[in-house]
């Protein structure tokens, strides 16, 4: 009786992987877009008033990440000059063909919602003279009068856009999961759960990023962290972390329990190739530890300083969890040769178009934009302040 052959890679699978660290970064950034938007929507649509201090900032953060979400893709394409063909000559049987449209729709939606949310301030400043006034006149789209009627209409549209934005965010990120989930050639990817897993981890990453940025910005601006707001974000994070991790692990458990032909290699993939990034980073450090930290940190009556500490550390760990998860899915899935008999290897280079250096640079750009936005728009003003 002969056993199963091992250690054989199809010759084209040798060497590097087709989707590099840029394709790890792409779902990471889109995830932050969707996650940050959900926080804004929790305030605008679900009436979570305690999130008021971050509601506007969340929207701006979502927009900033969205503005650079396509950059890793462009850097990855081997013929980037033809990128727009995805929209000009789309092949609609491709899961990827919808990207341009869904993405553009979402970016426009975010931009319009931001212009409406900040409309009062923009109109106000449009009356100023000089270049500054001109900038705000452009942002006011030329209409520099506000009446109670127009204000009411703006608010109505903000609600409408937020309501549309929720399914749009789900589509945007669920869709990213579908790009992987729909590849039947790859047993590590091919599961109907993939879109849902991506969506939950997107929300997790967005909320975690907001917690971090909120705490940092408060320090930077020398104002006190709003305890209720932070606590609310930590509770949201805790809930979605449980959901995301449960789904991620259930999917694996299911594969392990079914013990199909692919499991022999997938279990080896986890044990040998992804041991550190999966077991330690994604599972222990990124999921278990923040689960406990958040459980403690969201208790009522906790000392605000302790809450800030626990929130910040959990936020950071969860961001690492999601980055590890993206890596494990995108890179992990490609390490297994299509022969299902051996493993490829991939160590990202630092230099080069698809290197870590450029990836870090691209990842820093949304923060630069967010900072710029904070200079021209009052991101920290709350509606309550408006009312006064």
């Amino acid at each position, binding site marked *: *009786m*002969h*056993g*199963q*052959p091992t250690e*054989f890679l*199809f*010759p*084209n*699978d*040798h*060497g590097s992987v*087709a*989707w590099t660290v840029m394709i790890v970064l792409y779902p990471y950034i889109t995830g932050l877009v969707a996650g940050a938007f959900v926080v804004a929507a929790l305030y605008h649509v679900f009436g979570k008033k305690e999130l008021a201090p971050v509601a506007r900032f969340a929207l701006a953060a979502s927009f900033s990440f969205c503005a650079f979400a396509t950059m890793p893709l462009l850097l*990855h*394409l*081997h*013929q*980037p000059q*033809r*990128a727009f*063909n*995805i929209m000009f*000559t*789309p*092949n609609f*049987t*491709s*899961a*990827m*063909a919808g*990207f341009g449209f869904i993405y553009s729709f979402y970016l426009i939606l975010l931009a319009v919602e931001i212009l409406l949310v900040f409309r009062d301030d923009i109109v106000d400043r449009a009356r100023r003279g000089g270049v500054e006034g001109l900038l705000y006149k452009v942002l006011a789209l030329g209409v520099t009068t506000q009446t109670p009627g127009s204000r009411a209409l703006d608010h109505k549209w903000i609600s409408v856009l937020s309501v549309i934005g929720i399914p749009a965010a789900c589509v945007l990120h669920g869709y990213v999961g579908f*790009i992987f989930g*729909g*590849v*039947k*050639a*790859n047993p590590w990817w091919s599961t109907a759960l993939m879109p849902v897993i991506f969506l939950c981890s997107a929300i997790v990453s967005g909320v975690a990023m907001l917690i971090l940025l909120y705490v940092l910005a408060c320090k930077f601006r020398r104002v006190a962290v709003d305890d209720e707001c932070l606590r609310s974000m930590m509770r949201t994070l805790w809930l979605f972390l449980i959901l995301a991790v449960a789904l991620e692990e259930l999917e694996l458990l299911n594969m392990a329990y079914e013990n199909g032909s692919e499991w022999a290699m997938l279990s080896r993939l986890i044990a040998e190739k992804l041991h550190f990034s999966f077991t330690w980073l994604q599972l222990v450090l990124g999921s278990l530890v923040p689960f406990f930290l958040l459980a403690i940190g969201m208790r009522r009556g906790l000392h605000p300083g302790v809450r800030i500490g626990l929130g910040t550390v959990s936020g950071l760990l969860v961001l690492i969890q999601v980055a590890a998860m993206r890596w494990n899915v995108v890179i992990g899935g*490609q390490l297994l*040769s*299509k*022969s*299902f*008999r051996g493993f490829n290897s991939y160590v990202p280079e630092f230099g080069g178009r698809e290197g870590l250096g450029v990836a870090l640079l691209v990842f820093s750009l949304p923060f630069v934009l967010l900072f710029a936005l904070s200079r021209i728009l009052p991101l920290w003003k709350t509606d309550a302040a408006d009312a006064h």
Partner: protein
Amino acid sequence: MSCKPQGCPSCHPPADMAPDPSRREFVWDAIRTFSFGALTLTALPILVSEADADDDAKAAAPPPDAASPTTGAGKDKGKRTVLFGYLVDTNKCIGCGSCMLACKNENDVPDDQFRTWVERYVYYKDGRVEVDTCTSGNFSFDQKPALDPKVVDKAFFVPKLCNHCVETPCIQVCPVGASFMTQEGVVLIDHDRCIGCAYCVQACPFGTRFINHKTNTADKCTWCYHRVVKGEKPACVEVCPTGTRIFGDINDPDSDISKVLAANRIDVLKSYLGTRPKTRYMGLTAEVV
């Protein structure tokens, strides 16, 4: 499986019945299929082959400009539609690697990338099974140490190439339609359209696609489309000294490939994925993927 060459009249209607063997032919096929089906249960095998014929014809749906000098049959009244197929008889392969060399020369394939390759399966008496390839030098397994017959149960070679599937995941996922199928069922890539996203590389279950280092676009075996439309054989088929690789029109009952397909038990790779390869195999074992 494709429509078999011994074919029912509906798969290969006489010339006078097929004034425009494209859309109208399908309609007739469908009508005939239904009436046969209604008449008798014994028509079941016909139904199956009809459905397959439809699929294969669908697979052969051309991009607008894919008609070729010899095979633009769909346009010529009364001519049969050519549907290319490929058969690998692994029983005959000796692992000489001539095909790989010919392919590299014919298609200017980069050194470390492969449109075709040959795998060697070695079954040892102690239960081990080892698979390897020979991807350097002249690609001949002669360069490797000889196997010791005393410790080996059996060993054989399996050439691999694009399967030119009927249900192609690679064409399905291409976001810009750069991957397409010709009228004759050949899966090709338009290198002027490909954006190099590599989604097709991920989607092909057989590892046959790669991003060509030289062209920076997706690449894979074309069954030497530039040759076969002129009536020549693919370079690998031409040089194979043992007749392992057979290429031809599977819609022509008299072609070599049709005869071998009809008379033998035929396999395809990873059939469970439902891609319905048109590159077929003889002599596979369960270990070959």
